[in-house]
Protein backbone atom coordinates (compact mmCIF):
# COMPACT_ATOMS: atom_id res chain seq x y z
CA UNK A 1 0.00 0.00 0.00
CA UNK A 2 0.99 3.59 -0.56
CA UNK A 3 0.93 4.43 3.14
CA UNK A 4 3.23 1.54 3.87
CA UNK A 5 5.94 2.68 1.52
CA UNK A 6 5.72 6.20 2.91
CA UNK A 7 6.18 4.80 6.39
CA UNK A 8 9.10 2.69 5.19
CA UNK A 9 10.89 5.72 3.81
CA UNK A 10 10.29 7.55 7.07
CA UNK A 11 12.18 4.80 8.86
CA UNK A 12 14.94 4.28 6.29
CA UNK A 13 16.23 7.50 4.83
CA UNK A 14 19.47 9.40 4.76
CA UNK A 15 18.36 11.83 7.47
CA UNK A 16 16.89 9.37 9.94
CA UNK A 17 19.64 9.97 12.53
CA UNK A 18 19.35 13.74 12.38
CA UNK A 19 17.81 15.37 15.43
CA UNK A 20 14.02 15.07 15.16
CA UNK A 21 13.40 18.41 16.80
CA UNK A 22 15.72 20.05 14.29
CA UNK A 23 13.89 18.49 11.35
CA UNK A 24 10.52 19.59 12.70
CA UNK A 25 11.76 23.13 13.34
CA UNK A 26 13.32 23.35 9.90
CA UNK A 27 10.22 22.16 8.06
CA UNK A 28 7.71 24.21 10.05
CA UNK A 29 9.63 27.50 9.89
CA UNK A 30 10.31 27.15 6.16
CA UNK A 31 6.64 26.40 5.66
CA UNK A 32 5.71 29.57 7.53
CA UNK A 33 8.04 31.66 5.38
CA UNK A 34 6.44 30.18 2.27
CA UNK A 35 3.06 31.06 3.70
CA UNK A 36 3.71 34.73 4.46
CA UNK A 37 5.40 35.38 1.13
CA UNK A 38 3.41 37.68 -1.14
CA UNK A 39 5.34 37.00 -4.32
CA UNK A 40 5.71 33.61 -6.01
CA UNK A 41 9.53 33.79 -6.08
CA UNK A 42 10.36 32.64 -2.54
CA UNK A 43 7.92 29.71 -2.46
CA UNK A 44 9.39 28.46 -5.73
CA UNK A 45 12.92 28.70 -4.29
CA UNK A 46 11.70 26.78 -1.23
CA UNK A 47 10.21 24.11 -3.49
CA UNK A 48 13.54 23.63 -5.25
CA UNK A 49 15.66 23.64 -2.07
CA UNK A 50 13.37 21.22 -0.26
CA UNK A 51 13.23 18.86 -3.22
CA UNK A 52 17.03 19.00 -3.41
CA UNK A 53 17.34 18.09 0.28
CA UNK A 54 14.77 15.31 0.00
CA UNK A 55 16.39 13.69 -3.02
CA UNK A 56 20.09 14.19 -2.28
CA UNK A 57 20.31 14.25 1.53
CA UNK A 58 17.38 12.09 2.57
CA UNK A 59 18.11 9.87 -0.46
CA UNK A 60 14.48 9.29 -1.35
CA UNK A 61 14.39 7.78 -4.87
CA UNK A 62 13.54 10.63 -7.23
CA UNK A 63 11.00 8.55 -9.13
CA UNK A 64 9.00 7.92 -5.99
CA UNK A 65 9.33 11.55 -4.94
CA UNK A 66 8.13 12.89 -8.29
CA UNK A 67 5.17 10.54 -8.23
CA UNK A 68 4.46 11.77 -4.73
CA UNK A 69 4.68 15.38 -5.85
CA UNK A 70 2.61 14.86 -8.97
CA UNK A 71 -0.80 14.65 -7.23
CA UNK A 72 -0.61 18.01 -5.41
CA UNK A 73 0.90 19.57 -8.51
CA UNK A 74 -2.05 18.57 -10.68
CA UNK A 75 -4.33 19.80 -7.98
CA UNK A 76 -2.49 23.11 -7.65
CA UNK A 77 -2.42 23.55 -11.40
CA UNK A 78 -6.19 23.11 -11.74
CA UNK A 79 -6.62 25.65 -8.95
CA UNK A 80 -4.31 28.01 -10.82
CA UNK A 81 -6.37 27.76 -14.03
CA UNK A 82 -9.61 28.18 -12.13
CA UNK A 83 -8.37 31.26 -10.29
CA UNK A 84 -6.86 32.93 -13.33
CA UNK A 85 -10.20 32.69 -15.13
CA UNK A 86 -12.72 33.38 -12.40
CA UNK A 87 -10.86 35.49 -9.86
CA UNK A 88 -9.91 38.57 -11.77
CA UNK A 89 -11.61 41.86 -12.38
CA UNK A 90 -8.77 43.71 -14.14
CA UNK A 91 -7.52 43.86 -17.71
CA UNK A 92 -7.97 40.82 -19.94
CA UNK A 93 -4.74 39.29 -21.19
CA UNK A 94 -6.15 36.29 -23.02
CA UNK A 95 -9.61 35.90 -24.45
CA UNK A 96 -10.81 32.29 -24.39
CA UNK A 97 -13.44 32.88 -27.02
CA UNK A 98 -16.37 31.12 -25.37
CA UNK A 99 -18.86 32.13 -22.68
CA UNK A 100 -17.15 35.49 -22.57
CA UNK A 101 -14.41 33.98 -20.40
CA UNK A 102 -10.98 35.51 -20.23
CA UNK A 103 -7.77 35.25 -18.25
CA UNK A 104 -7.19 38.44 -16.31
CA UNK A 105 -3.89 39.84 -15.09
CA UNK A 106 -4.72 39.97 -11.39
CA UNK A 107 -6.43 36.57 -11.52
CA UNK A 108 -3.33 35.10 -13.14
CA UNK A 109 -1.07 36.67 -10.53
CA UNK A 110 -3.20 35.44 -7.64
CA UNK A 111 -3.47 31.96 -9.13
CA UNK A 112 0.25 31.71 -9.70
CA UNK A 113 0.99 32.88 -6.17
CA UNK A 114 -1.33 30.23 -4.75
CA UNK A 115 0.27 27.59 -6.99
CA UNK A 116 3.73 28.56 -5.74
CA UNK A 117 2.59 28.59 -2.12
CA UNK A 118 0.98 25.17 -2.40
CA UNK A 119 4.14 23.68 -3.89
CA UNK A 120 6.35 25.40 -1.29
CA UNK A 121 4.21 24.26 1.61
CA UNK A 122 3.77 20.81 0.19
CA UNK A 123 7.47 20.12 -0.21
CA UNK A 124 8.02 21.12 3.43
CA UNK A 125 5.27 18.72 4.42
CA UNK A 126 6.81 16.03 2.23
CA UNK A 127 10.08 16.58 4.07
CA UNK A 128 8.30 15.99 7.40
CA UNK A 129 6.40 12.95 6.11
CA UNK A 130 9.37 11.32 4.44
CA UNK A 131 12.07 11.80 7.07
CA UNK A 132 10.38 11.46 10.47
CA UNK A 133 8.87 8.17 11.68
CA UNK A 134 5.56 8.51 13.51
CA UNK A 135 6.83 7.04 16.79
CA UNK A 136 9.55 9.67 17.08
CA UNK A 137 7.09 12.40 16.41
CA UNK A 138 4.98 11.10 19.30
CA UNK A 139 7.86 11.34 21.74
CA UNK A 140 8.50 14.90 20.58
CA UNK A 141 4.83 15.73 21.06
CA UNK A 142 4.91 14.28 24.57
CA UNK A 143 7.67 16.72 25.41
CA UNK A 144 5.70 19.77 24.37
CA UNK A 145 2.97 18.72 26.83
CA UNK A 146 0.21 17.50 24.56
CA UNK A 147 -2.30 15.81 26.92
CA UNK A 148 -1.55 12.14 27.43
CA UNK A 149 -5.03 10.92 26.52
CA UNK A 150 -4.74 12.57 23.11
CA UNK A 151 -1.40 10.94 22.44
CA UNK A 152 -2.70 7.59 23.61
CA UNK A 153 -5.67 7.83 21.25
CA UNK A 154 -3.41 9.01 18.47
CA UNK A 155 -1.12 6.04 19.01
CA UNK A 156 -4.02 3.57 19.03
CA UNK A 157 -5.47 5.22 15.95
CA UNK A 158 -2.16 5.04 14.15
CA UNK A 159 -2.01 1.33 14.85
CA UNK A 160 -5.64 0.78 13.85
CA UNK A 161 -5.14 2.45 10.50
CA UNK A 162 -2.75 -0.33 9.59
CA UNK A 163 -5.07 -2.97 11.05
CA UNK A 164 -7.81 -1.47 8.86
CA UNK A 165 -5.71 -1.72 5.71
CA UNK A 166 -4.55 -5.19 6.62
CA UNK A 167 -8.08 -6.47 7.22
CA UNK A 168 -9.29 -4.81 4.03
CA UNK A 169 -6.57 -6.51 2.00
CA UNK A 170 -7.25 -9.90 3.59
CA UNK A 171 -10.97 -9.68 3.00
CA UNK A 172 -10.49 -8.42 -0.52
CA UNK A 173 -8.23 -11.32 -1.43
CA UNK A 174 -10.59 -13.79 0.20
CA UNK A 175 -13.49 -12.41 -1.81
CA UNK A 176 -11.50 -12.30 -5.01
CA UNK A 177 -10.45 -15.94 -4.80
CA UNK A 178 -14.13 -16.81 -4.40
CA UNK A 179 -15.11 -14.94 -7.58
CA UNK A 180 -16.45 -12.01 -5.60
CA UNK A 181 -15.52 -9.47 -8.26
CA UNK A 182 -16.41 -11.42 -11.37
CA UNK A 183 -19.20 -9.10 -12.50
CA UNK A 184 -20.26 -5.57 -11.75
CA UNK A 185 -23.26 -6.64 -9.70
CA UNK A 186 -21.19 -9.05 -7.64
CA UNK A 187 -18.52 -6.39 -7.15
CA UNK A 188 -21.05 -4.04 -5.62
CA UNK A 189 -22.32 -6.73 -3.30
CA UNK A 190 -18.83 -7.78 -2.27
CA UNK A 191 -17.75 -4.19 -1.74
CA UNK A 192 -20.73 -3.59 0.52
CA UNK A 193 -19.98 -6.68 2.56
CA UNK A 194 -16.35 -5.69 2.86
CA UNK A 195 -17.09 -2.14 3.94
CA UNK A 196 -19.65 -3.11 6.55
CA UNK A 197 -17.56 -5.89 8.06
CA UNK A 198 -14.36 -3.91 8.01
CA UNK A 199 -15.29 -1.58 10.85
CA UNK A 200 -16.47 -4.39 13.12
CA UNK A 201 -13.48 -6.62 12.38
CA UNK A 202 -11.04 -3.82 13.08
CA UNK A 203 -12.85 -2.90 16.25
CA UNK A 204 -12.79 -6.46 17.58
CA UNK A 205 -9.13 -6.91 16.66
CA UNK A 206 -8.20 -3.56 18.16
CA UNK A 207 -10.08 -4.37 21.34
CA UNK A 208 -8.21 -7.65 21.68
CA UNK A 209 -4.90 -5.88 21.30
CA UNK A 210 -5.95 -3.27 23.84
CA UNK A 211 -6.98 -5.86 26.43
CA UNK A 212 -3.77 -7.78 25.82
CA UNK A 213 -1.77 -4.63 26.49
CA UNK A 214 -3.82 -3.73 29.52
CA UNK A 215 -3.26 -7.11 31.13
CA UNK A 216 0.45 -6.40 30.75
CA UNK A 217 0.34 -3.22 32.80
CA UNK A 218 -0.32 -0.77 29.96
CA UNK A 219 -1.34 2.53 31.49
CA UNK A 220 -1.62 4.84 28.53
CA UNK A 221 1.93 5.36 27.40
CA UNK A 222 4.53 3.14 25.77
CA UNK A 223 7.92 3.92 27.19
CA UNK A 224 10.99 3.52 25.06
CA UNK A 225 14.68 3.61 25.94
CA UNK A 226 15.45 6.40 23.52
CA UNK A 227 17.43 9.26 25.02
CA UNK A 228 15.48 12.50 24.84
CA UNK A 229 17.03 14.80 22.29
CA UNK A 230 17.65 18.41 23.14
CA UNK A 231 18.25 21.52 21.11
CA UNK A 232 21.92 21.28 22.10
CA UNK A 233 22.43 18.06 20.11
CA UNK A 234 21.66 19.89 16.90
CA UNK A 235 25.15 21.29 16.78
CA UNK A 236 26.34 24.83 16.23
CA UNK A 237 27.05 24.35 12.53
CA UNK A 238 23.58 23.07 11.70
CA UNK A 239 21.93 25.71 13.82
CA UNK A 240 23.87 28.49 12.09
CA UNK A 241 23.05 27.08 8.67
CA UNK A 242 19.40 26.86 9.63
CA UNK A 243 19.20 30.46 10.90
CA UNK A 244 21.10 31.83 7.89
CA UNK A 245 18.79 29.96 5.53
CA UNK A 246 15.64 31.30 7.15
CA UNK A 247 17.00 34.86 7.27
CA UNK A 248 17.92 34.69 3.59
CA UNK A 249 14.43 33.48 2.77
CA UNK A 250 12.84 36.26 4.81
CA UNK A 251 15.07 38.78 3.06
CA UNK A 252 13.92 37.30 -0.23
CA UNK A 253 10.31 37.75 0.80
CA UNK A 254 11.00 41.39 1.61
CA UNK A 255 12.93 42.12 -1.59
CA UNK A 256 10.61 40.37 -4.03
CA UNK A 257 7.49 41.66 -2.33
CA UNK A 258 6.29 43.71 -5.28
CA UNK A 259 7.19 41.21 -8.00
CA UNK A 260 4.32 40.23 -10.30
CA UNK A 261 4.39 38.32 -13.54
CA UNK A 262 1.91 40.65 -15.16
CA UNK A 263 1.93 44.26 -14.10
CA UNK A 264 -1.52 45.51 -13.27
CA UNK A 265 -2.17 48.59 -15.31
Amino acid at each position, binding site marked *: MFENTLDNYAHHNGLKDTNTLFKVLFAISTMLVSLISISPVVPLIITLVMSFIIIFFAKIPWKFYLKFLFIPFVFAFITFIFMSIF*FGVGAHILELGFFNLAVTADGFNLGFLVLARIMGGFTCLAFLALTIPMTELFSELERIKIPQIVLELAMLMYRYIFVFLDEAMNMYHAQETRMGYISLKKSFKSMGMLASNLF*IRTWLKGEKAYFAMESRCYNGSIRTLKEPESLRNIGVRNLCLFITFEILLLLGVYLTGSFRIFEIV
Partner: protein
Amino acid sequence: MEGFLPWQWCLFWYIVAMPVVAYGVIQIKKITDKQPESKPLLAVSGAFVFILSSLKLPSVTGSCSHPTGTGLGAVLFGPAAASVLGAIVLVFQAILLAHGGITTLGANIFSMGIIGPLVAWLVYKGIQKANGPTLLGVFLAAALADLMTYVTTAIQLSLAFPVPSFGMAFNNFMWIFAITQIPLAIAEGLLTVVIFDYIMKLKPDILENLKVIGPKVKEKVQAVV
Protein backbone atom coordinates in the same frame (compact mmCIF):
# COMPACT_ATOMS: atom_id res chain seq x y z
CA MET B 1 -4.39 22.32 1.12
CA GLU B 2 -1.04 23.54 2.41
CA GLY B 3 -0.28 27.14 1.56
CA PHE B 4 -3.68 27.86 0.08
CA LEU B 5 -5.05 30.22 2.70
CA PRO B 6 -3.45 33.59 3.48
CA TRP B 7 -1.72 33.58 6.88
CA GLN B 8 -4.28 35.88 8.56
CA TRP B 9 -7.00 33.33 7.93
CA CYS B 10 -4.80 30.44 9.03
CA LEU B 11 -4.29 32.18 12.37
CA PHE B 12 -7.95 33.11 12.68
CA TRP B 13 -9.18 29.53 12.20
CA TYR B 14 -6.57 28.22 14.62
CA ILE B 15 -7.85 30.61 17.27
CA VAL B 16 -11.47 29.59 16.62
CA ALA B 17 -10.73 25.86 16.62
CA MET B 18 -8.43 25.58 19.63
CA PRO B 19 -10.90 26.17 22.50
CA VAL B 20 -13.33 23.61 21.08
CA VAL B 21 -10.62 20.99 20.78
CA ALA B 22 -9.45 21.75 24.32
CA TYR B 23 -13.00 21.28 25.59
CA GLY B 24 -13.18 18.03 23.59
CA VAL B 25 -10.05 16.73 25.30
CA ILE B 26 -11.69 17.28 28.69
CA GLN B 27 -14.81 15.46 27.48
CA ILE B 28 -12.79 12.52 26.17
CA LYS B 29 -10.92 12.31 29.46
CA LYS B 30 -14.25 12.10 31.27
CA ILE B 31 -15.56 9.35 28.97
CA THR B 32 -12.41 7.23 29.15
CA ASP B 33 -12.03 7.64 32.92
CA LYS B 34 -15.53 6.36 33.40
CA GLN B 35 -15.33 3.63 30.74
CA PRO B 36 -11.79 2.67 29.76
CA GLU B 37 -13.24 -0.02 27.49
CA SER B 38 -14.54 2.64 25.13
CA LYS B 39 -10.97 3.59 24.15
CA PRO B 40 -10.70 1.03 21.33
CA LEU B 41 -14.02 2.18 19.88
CA LEU B 42 -12.87 5.79 20.04
CA ALA B 43 -9.65 4.92 18.26
CA VAL B 44 -11.39 2.78 15.63
CA SER B 45 -13.85 5.60 14.91
CA GLY B 46 -10.82 7.82 14.45
CA ALA B 47 -9.15 5.34 12.11
CA PHE B 48 -12.46 5.14 10.22
CA VAL B 49 -12.45 8.92 9.77
CA PHE B 50 -8.88 8.71 8.57
CA ILE B 51 -9.56 6.00 5.99
CA LEU B 52 -12.69 7.68 4.65
CA SER B 53 -11.17 11.11 4.41
CA SER B 54 -8.13 9.78 2.57
CA LEU B 55 -10.36 8.79 -0.34
CA LYS B 56 -9.88 12.07 -2.10
CA LEU B 57 -11.31 13.34 -5.31
CA PRO B 58 -9.63 16.52 -6.42
CA SER B 59 -12.04 19.36 -7.04
CA VAL B 60 -10.88 22.59 -8.52
CA THR B 61 -11.22 24.89 -5.59
CA GLY B 62 -8.21 24.55 -3.37
CA SER B 63 -9.71 21.74 -1.43
CA CYS B 64 -10.50 18.12 -2.22
CA SER B 65 -13.82 16.38 -2.01
CA HIS B 66 -13.85 13.36 0.22
CA PRO B 67 -16.20 11.61 2.62
CA THR B 68 -15.51 12.79 6.17
CA GLY B 69 -16.67 9.96 8.41
CA THR B 70 -17.02 12.31 11.36
CA GLY B 71 -20.75 11.67 11.66
CA LEU B 72 -20.27 8.27 13.26
CA GLY B 73 -17.87 9.55 15.88
CA ALA B 74 -20.19 12.43 16.69
CA VAL B 75 -23.23 10.19 17.11
CA LEU B 76 -21.26 7.81 19.33
CA PHE B 77 -19.28 10.22 21.51
CA GLY B 78 -20.76 13.67 21.06
CA PRO B 79 -19.47 16.60 19.01
CA ALA B 80 -16.69 17.70 21.37
CA ALA B 81 -15.01 14.29 21.43
CA ALA B 82 -15.44 13.94 17.67
CA SER B 83 -13.66 17.25 17.17
CA VAL B 84 -10.61 15.83 18.93
CA LEU B 85 -10.75 12.74 16.71
CA GLY B 86 -11.01 15.01 13.68
CA ALA B 87 -8.05 17.06 14.84
CA ILE B 88 -5.86 13.99 15.35
CA VAL B 89 -6.87 12.61 11.96
CA LEU B 90 -6.04 15.88 10.23
CA VAL B 91 -2.61 15.97 11.86
CA PHE B 92 -2.03 12.39 10.69
CA GLN B 93 -3.10 13.22 7.19
CA ALA B 94 -0.78 16.18 7.06
CA ILE B 95 2.22 14.26 8.33
CA LEU B 96 1.59 10.77 7.02
CA LEU B 97 0.07 11.43 3.62
CA ALA B 98 0.90 15.09 3.20
CA HIS B 99 -2.78 15.86 2.68
CA GLY B 100 -4.41 18.90 4.20
CA GLY B 101 -1.51 20.68 5.78
CA ILE B 102 -0.17 22.12 9.01
CA THR B 103 -0.88 25.76 8.28
CA THR B 104 -4.45 25.10 7.19
CA LEU B 105 -5.05 22.78 10.13
CA GLY B 106 -7.13 25.30 12.04
CA ALA B 107 -9.50 25.86 9.13
CA ASN B 108 -9.77 22.14 8.46
CA ILE B 109 -10.48 21.34 12.10
CA PHE B 110 -13.18 23.98 12.11
CA SER B 111 -14.99 22.64 9.04
CA MET B 112 -14.44 18.90 9.38
CA GLY B 113 -13.92 18.54 13.11
CA ILE B 114 -16.33 21.07 14.59
CA ILE B 115 -19.17 22.02 12.25
CA GLY B 116 -19.60 18.52 10.77
CA PRO B 117 -19.88 16.65 14.09
CA LEU B 118 -22.01 19.41 15.62
CA VAL B 119 -24.53 19.12 12.79
CA ALA B 120 -24.48 15.32 12.99
CA TRP B 121 -25.10 15.37 16.72
CA LEU B 122 -27.91 17.93 16.52
CA VAL B 123 -29.65 16.02 13.73
CA TYR B 124 -29.33 12.70 15.52
CA LYS B 125 -30.56 14.05 18.85
CA GLY B 126 -33.37 15.90 17.11
CA ILE B 127 -34.67 12.78 15.40
CA GLN B 128 -34.35 10.82 18.63
CA LYS B 129 -36.41 13.46 20.45
CA ALA B 130 -39.05 13.23 17.75
CA ASN B 131 -39.11 9.45 18.22
CA GLY B 132 -37.96 8.90 14.65
CA PRO B 133 -36.26 5.64 13.67
CA THR B 134 -32.69 5.41 14.97
CA LEU B 135 -31.17 4.37 11.67
CA LEU B 136 -32.82 7.24 9.78
CA GLY B 137 -31.23 9.56 12.33
CA VAL B 138 -27.84 7.99 11.75
CA PHE B 139 -28.17 8.27 7.98
CA LEU B 140 -29.18 11.92 8.05
CA ALA B 141 -26.56 12.73 10.68
CA ALA B 142 -23.72 11.26 8.63
CA ALA B 143 -24.87 12.65 5.27
CA LEU B 144 -25.62 16.14 6.56
CA ALA B 145 -22.37 16.28 8.54
CA ASP B 146 -20.55 15.57 5.33
CA LEU B 147 -22.47 18.19 3.36
CA MET B 148 -22.23 20.90 6.00
CA THR B 149 -18.47 20.35 6.23
CA TYR B 150 -18.27 21.40 2.60
CA VAL B 151 -20.61 24.33 2.95
CA THR B 152 -18.30 25.53 5.73
CA THR B 153 -15.24 24.98 3.55
CA ALA B 154 -16.87 26.98 0.76
CA ILE B 155 -17.55 29.81 3.21
CA GLN B 156 -13.96 29.71 4.45
CA LEU B 157 -12.58 29.76 0.93
CA SER B 158 -14.77 32.61 -0.22
CA LEU B 159 -13.92 34.60 2.92
CA ALA B 160 -10.24 34.17 2.09
CA PHE B 161 -10.66 34.93 -1.63
CA PRO B 162 -13.67 37.24 -1.92
CA VAL B 163 -13.09 37.92 -5.63
CA PRO B 164 -15.03 39.61 -7.13
CA SER B 165 -17.30 39.54 -4.08
CA PHE B 166 -18.01 37.15 -1.23
CA GLY B 167 -21.35 36.09 -2.66
CA MET B 168 -20.06 35.39 -6.16
CA ALA B 169 -17.08 33.42 -4.92
CA PHE B 170 -19.31 31.44 -2.56
CA ASN B 171 -21.61 30.63 -5.44
CA ASN B 172 -18.71 29.38 -7.57
CA PHE B 173 -17.31 27.20 -4.83
CA MET B 174 -20.69 25.77 -3.86
CA TRP B 175 -21.52 24.64 -7.38
CA ILE B 176 -18.29 22.77 -7.78
CA PHE B 177 -18.54 21.13 -4.38
CA ALA B 178 -22.16 20.17 -4.90
CA ILE B 179 -21.34 18.00 -7.92
CA THR B 180 -18.84 15.84 -6.09
CA GLN B 181 -20.12 16.06 -2.57
CA ILE B 182 -23.81 15.16 -2.72
CA PRO B 183 -23.27 11.59 -4.04
CA LEU B 184 -20.42 11.13 -1.59
CA ALA B 185 -22.58 12.30 1.31
CA ILE B 186 -25.33 9.84 0.44
CA ALA B 187 -22.83 6.97 0.10
CA GLU B 188 -21.29 7.87 3.44
CA GLY B 189 -24.70 8.01 5.09
CA LEU B 190 -25.54 4.51 3.85
CA LEU B 191 -22.21 3.08 4.95
CA THR B 192 -22.57 4.63 8.40
CA VAL B 193 -26.04 3.11 8.76
CA VAL B 194 -24.72 -0.37 7.95
CA ILE B 195 -21.91 0.00 10.47
CA PHE B 196 -24.12 1.46 13.16
CA ASP B 197 -26.61 -1.34 12.67
CA TYR B 198 -23.85 -3.88 13.30
CA ILE B 199 -22.66 -2.10 16.43
CA MET B 200 -26.22 -2.04 17.72
CA LYS B 201 -26.60 -5.78 17.22
CA LEU B 202 -23.16 -6.71 18.48
CA LYS B 203 -22.61 -4.45 21.45
CA PRO B 204 -25.79 -2.68 22.47
CA ASP B 205 -24.47 -2.28 26.02
CA ILE B 206 -21.70 0.07 25.05
CA LEU B 207 -24.15 2.22 23.07
CA GLU B 208 -26.51 2.36 26.03
CA ASN B 209 -23.71 3.33 28.40
CA LEU B 210 -22.70 6.12 26.05
CA LYS B 211 -26.36 7.20 26.00
CA VAL B 212 -26.53 6.84 22.23
CA ILE B 213 -29.65 4.68 22.30
CA GLY B 214 -32.32 4.42 24.96
CA PRO B 215 -33.19 1.16 26.74
CA LYS B 216 -36.28 0.74 24.53
CA VAL B 217 -34.30 0.59 21.31
CA LYS B 218 -31.89 -1.83 22.92
CA GLU B 219 -34.68 -4.23 23.86
CA LYS B 220 -36.08 -4.06 20.36
CA VAL B 221 -32.73 -4.81 18.79
CA GLN B 222 -32.11 -7.71 21.13
CA ALA B 223 -35.55 -9.12 20.41
CA VAL B 224 -34.72 -9.18 16.70
CA VAL B 225 -31.35 -10.86 17.24
